[in-house]
């Protein structure tokens, strides 16, 4: 529970779009199953007064917060407007924004993150599946039925690959404390380093699986920053240089950020690197 628990009230920004409405429903189903508060309000400018799956919609985050006790938002606003929505949430005083949106221009993200930081607001994402603390809180779009509560944290730049790893761990009987999808964009609000910091002060988390991919060096930075036992996996060992592998941030540029050198650097730090996702549970078990 590093980003909230069952008492956390959620606002969904971009509530009336297909994605927003669909996931309000799924998040509230999960809240009902786990005794959480779930989504208490939605925001879409110009759509105030409507309801989505029984949840009231407001024109602004400020209006929603005046009527409801909420500290966090999950954002499904389209890419061209998402940077603005992050700043709106931060300015209204929310503590945490989870930006699911894919396709935000990176200059918008950069400015929105700088603004949010000045307002004291934490941003997860963009281009991420959100977070899941099994049995407590789901912020975003992760399928919760694969997960089970436990002591292993997961931090990942990917979505479905994370579900694969959750699935492998659960099948091996290893539960998860919190699963954090930090996002596939080159510029993201919470990097491995920052999430690991939160895991360090989380009594529930005993070890962390770090799932990275080609592009940048945030994995190595994170790995050097923590004393927590880690298992890592890096996707993209077969990725060609200078090609964007699905994620905006997954690109080997100017000979930097390739999987082979990432893996070599992690191994040099003495950190186990799984060759394939199915090897992860056995490596985790060795740490526990």
């Amino acid at each position, binding site marked *: 529970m590093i980003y909230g628990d069952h008492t956390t009230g959620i606002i969904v920004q971009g509530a009336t779009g297909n994605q927003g409405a669909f996931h309000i429903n799924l998040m509230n189903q999960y809240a009902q199953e786990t005794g959480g508060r779930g989504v208490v309000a939605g925001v879409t400018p110009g759509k105030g007064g409507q309801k989505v799956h029984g949840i009231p919609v407001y024109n602004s985050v400020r209006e929603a917060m005046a009527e409801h006790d909420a500290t966090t938002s999950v954002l499904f606003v389209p*890419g061209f407007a998402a940077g603005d929505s992050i700043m709106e949430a931060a300015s209204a005083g929310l503590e945490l924004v989870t930006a699911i949106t894919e396709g935000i*221009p990176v200059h918008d993200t950069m400015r929105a993150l700088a603004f949010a930081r000045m307002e004291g607001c934490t941003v997860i994402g963009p281009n991420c599946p959100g977070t899941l603390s099994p049995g407590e809180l789901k912020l975003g779009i992760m399928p919760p039925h694969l997960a089970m509560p436990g002591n292993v944290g997961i931090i990942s730049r990917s979505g479905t690959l994370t*579900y*694969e790893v959750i699935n492998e761990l659960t099948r091996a009987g290893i539960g998860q404390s919190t699963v954090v999808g930090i996002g596939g964009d080159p510029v993201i609000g919470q990097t491995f380093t920052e999430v690991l910091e939160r895991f360090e002060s989380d009594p529930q988390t005993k070890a962390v699986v770090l799932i990275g991919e080609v592009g940048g060096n945030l994995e190595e930075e994170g790995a050097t920053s923590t004393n927590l036992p880690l298992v890592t996996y890096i996707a993209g060992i077969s990725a060609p240089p200078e090609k964007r592998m*699905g994620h905006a941030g997954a690109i080997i540029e100017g000979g930097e950020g390739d999987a082979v050198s990432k893996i070599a650097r992690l191994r040099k730090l003495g950190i186990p690197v799984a060759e394939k996702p199915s090897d992860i549970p056995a490596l985790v078990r060795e740490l526990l």
Partner: protein
Amino acid sequence: MKLLEFEAKEIFQKYGIPIPDGVVIRNPDELRGHLNEFSDEVVVKSQVDVGGRGKAGGIIVTQKEDAVEAAKHLFSFPIKGLIPKAILVEEKLPIEHEYYVSITIDRTTRQPMILFAETGGVDIEETARTRPEALRRAGFSPLLSEVPGFLMRRILGTAPKELGPVINNLYKAFCASDALLAEINPLVTTSRGVFAADAKLIIDDNALIRQGITANRDLTPREREAEENGFSYVELDGSIGVIGNGAGLTMSTLDLIEHYEGKAANFLDVGGGAGRERVMKAVRLVAGMPDVKVIVVNLLGGITRCDEVAKGIIDAGIDQHVITRLAGTNEDEGKALLAKNGYQMLETMEDVVKQAVKEAAA
């Protein structure tokens, strides 16, 4: 998307960065009408988007009488396999000194980062190796509209102050054009002032629409078709077609193929909501690559409907065998449908990959 030198220079000029006098030609004869605009020496530059263009022979310095011949040569001279569609002919500058400057986005600090070197005209990696003391970098808040003066002084050190306004204008061009990289190498000083002798600009693919760019030129025709269908797609050169959902899972599937000594033909991420129609289109697209012998479909999602995916695979009606791993709802219905039509559905991604590698090798 990468811009060509002359396109980047047009943008730089709009933001007040001086560029050499020059002309862009689409065939050698076009140059004849422009020769009188130049004094004696000219630089003829192939407009291809590859690094090391100069070393590869893509830049010719010549007397203007011989410029048409030089252009003729470059129009049929491939550089790393690329033939230029355009050539830039410029005045030869009376260069006094060459510098390097670029602006990128630093992932760690999430800020614009200026990189400046006292030696330009060579690879920045080379400078980093041979003269690290000549390199200086500085990051600053993206909420600022200009490079702060104290940082500019730190970056420039003993280099001429006249470079400052050019670097500041480069930052403005970088922001206004949604760039991931804006680079001038070399940035040169001459008796007539400072000039951008070369120019490089990479635009954020997520901002192409608002930059007024309709088609991403970096993509192959099949990659563009995939993009229009909302897929992320990269062509590779193996014989195992790959379709997955999510960039990480799809990459991991490719890695697993390599792990079991197979070769993937492509990367295709169908994205969220893999329904019947999208799956059919994806399967057809991958099956259309000439070397594909077998296709792996690896979809994992809480809300993926396996029966719909199965119908999409069957609808595609392709010749190659499709081996699937589907996890979601209605798994049994999907499996039965696929089996009835001669396709296989296996439990794990490892099973699927091993089977595909075996079939591709047969």
